[in-house]
């Protein structure tokens, strides 16, 4: 994620080209379906390939908005090998919270590229408003792929990778996994490993963790690296019930701070006296258990139910529960799929919405990033999908539209000075996602 005052012309051009390409691909799907009776079956550029594409628009109330086209291509060969490519582009803009606490007084901040709290590279937050950088902008292009090969009748291996590029961030990930079937293919055991290497090139430099915001103590580029492993078992329970259990662990080391997040320092009367850059630990180990179930209840109704328990050595624990209910209609011509997701997390040990002041700078880890704080969230979703006429090799074509509403509510219980109690210090995050998709 990056914050920069203005989009670069090069980035704008790249965005336009990618948007055009994505729209063209989506249009190609439409054209393909409408001209099924004209064009020879299976003809065209994407013959023998399955294409899953979508265009999503994400909008937060008063903050970020983003547009994200996604294209996923896959091909299964006669000998069981399969190939997959995917491309994702994000264009984000809007206002991003900088971590500072709402105050009764105006607050002036420097843009990421700024080196002073005065002048043109600054922005001011009005009293009673959540401090946000209004010039947030970010473009991201990610490409990934995987290659799966059967190495025995019941065993297959897969290797893959992903590259993701932003103006201030670059990530390269490789992964490999092996899966083996047992019990007449009712049980599948899988094991995978991945390695991620990230380069951070924060605008204006990477701040010294925990340093005084007013001193602009910044250094050059930073990096972080992660390795992970995932062990999974998939089991057919009954004719109508498929279940999967995954256990995963990963460990990241390096510069794990958000270089654009700061923490307010306030005195006992609630006045803001300064800010510090956040300071997270330089290593993190995460573990999770994930249980997914696909259950068909009738010829028209099925559910996908999943649960996840997550914990890490920063003190964060979370639980996630998700339910999708798919209801087919009219001889499986179309379906509606309402969904609900519930999420709750505890705060990181070093999370603090502010530093209660004192003249001395803190020496331990601290972050006011609300994403490391305690909160719960709900997502309500609704999807509609229409099955399209079979088109040569592209059996199972589908047009879909879906909308999701996401709301985070903070559960911060830290006492605040009396003068701040009338302020909305932890406003809810409300977001909506609208997406159309084409699969052919």
């Amino acid at each position, binding site marked *: 994620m990056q914050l920069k005052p203005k989009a670069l012309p090069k980035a704008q051009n790249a965005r336009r080209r990618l948007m055009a390409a994505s729209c063209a691909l989506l249009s190609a799907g439409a054209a393909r379906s409408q001209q099924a009776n004209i064009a020879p079956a299976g003809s065209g550029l994407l013959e023998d390939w399955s294409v899953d594409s979508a265009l999503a628009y994400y909008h937060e109330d008063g903050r970020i908005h983003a547009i994200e086209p996604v294209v996923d291509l896959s091909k299964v060969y006669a000998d069981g090998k399969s190939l997959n490519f995917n491309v994702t582009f994000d264009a984000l803009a809007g206002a991003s919270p900088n971590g500072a606490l709402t105050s009764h007084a105006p607050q002036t901040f420097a843009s990421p590229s700024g080196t002073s709290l005065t002048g043109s590279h600054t922005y001011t937050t009005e009293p009673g408003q959540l401090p946000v950088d209004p010039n947030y902008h970010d473009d991201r292009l990610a490409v990934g792929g995987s290659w799966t090969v059967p190495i025995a009748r019941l065993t297959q291996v897969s290797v893959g990778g992903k590259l993701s590029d932003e103006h201030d961030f670059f990530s390269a990930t490789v992964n490999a996994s092996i899966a083996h079937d047992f019990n*007449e293919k009712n049980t599948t055991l899988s094991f995978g490993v991945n390695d991620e290497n990230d380069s951070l090139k924060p605008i204006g430099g990477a701040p010294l963790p925990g340093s005084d915001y007013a001193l602009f103590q910044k250094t050059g580029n930073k990096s972080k690296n992660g390795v992970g492993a995932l062990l999974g*078992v998939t089991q057919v329970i009954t004719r109508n019930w498929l279940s999967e259990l995954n256990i995963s662990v990963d460990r990241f080391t390096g510069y794990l701070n958000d270089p654009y997040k700061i923490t307010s320092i306030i005195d006992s009367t609630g006045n803001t006296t300064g800010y510090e850059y956040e300071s997270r630990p330089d290593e993190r180990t995460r573990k999770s258990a994930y249980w997914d179930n696909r259950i068909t209840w009738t010829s028209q109704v099925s559910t996908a139910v999943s649960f996840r328990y997550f914990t890490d050595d920063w003190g964060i624990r979370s639980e996630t529960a998700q339910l999708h209910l798919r209801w087919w209609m009219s001889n499986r011509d179309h379906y509606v799929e309402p969904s609900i997701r519930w*999420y709750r997390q505890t705060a990181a040990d070093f999370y603090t919405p502010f530093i209660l002041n004192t003249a001395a700078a803190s020496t331990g880890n601290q972050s006011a990033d609300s994403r490391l704080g305690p909160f719960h969230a709900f997502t309500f979703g609704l999807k509609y999908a229409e099955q399209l006429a079979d088109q040569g090799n592209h059996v199972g074509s589908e047009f879909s539209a879906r909308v999701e509403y996401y709301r985070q509510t903070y559960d911060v219980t830290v006492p605040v000075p009396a003068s701040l109690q009338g302020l909305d210090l932890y406003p809810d995050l409300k977001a909506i996602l609208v997406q159309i998709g084409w699969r052919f």
Partner: protein
Amino acid sequence: MSFGQLGALCMMAGALVVSGCSSIGVKPWQRDVLAREEMQLDAEPVDAAIDDHMYFSKEASSGGRSFAGGGCGCN
């Protein structure tokens, strides 16, 4: 826990799962419902990827369904 210990634990867990699961499941001719698109664990990869990216950028947890890496500087 060392990698050796973790490997041994995984092998033991795998053996238990394989032996414990041998009595449940279906015969090959009973897979009609399981073959439906909505019964596939990766039935909607694009929807899942978009949702995962949204949650990755707004929450402290990620992963579970697959590897947790985000490939994104947003969190």
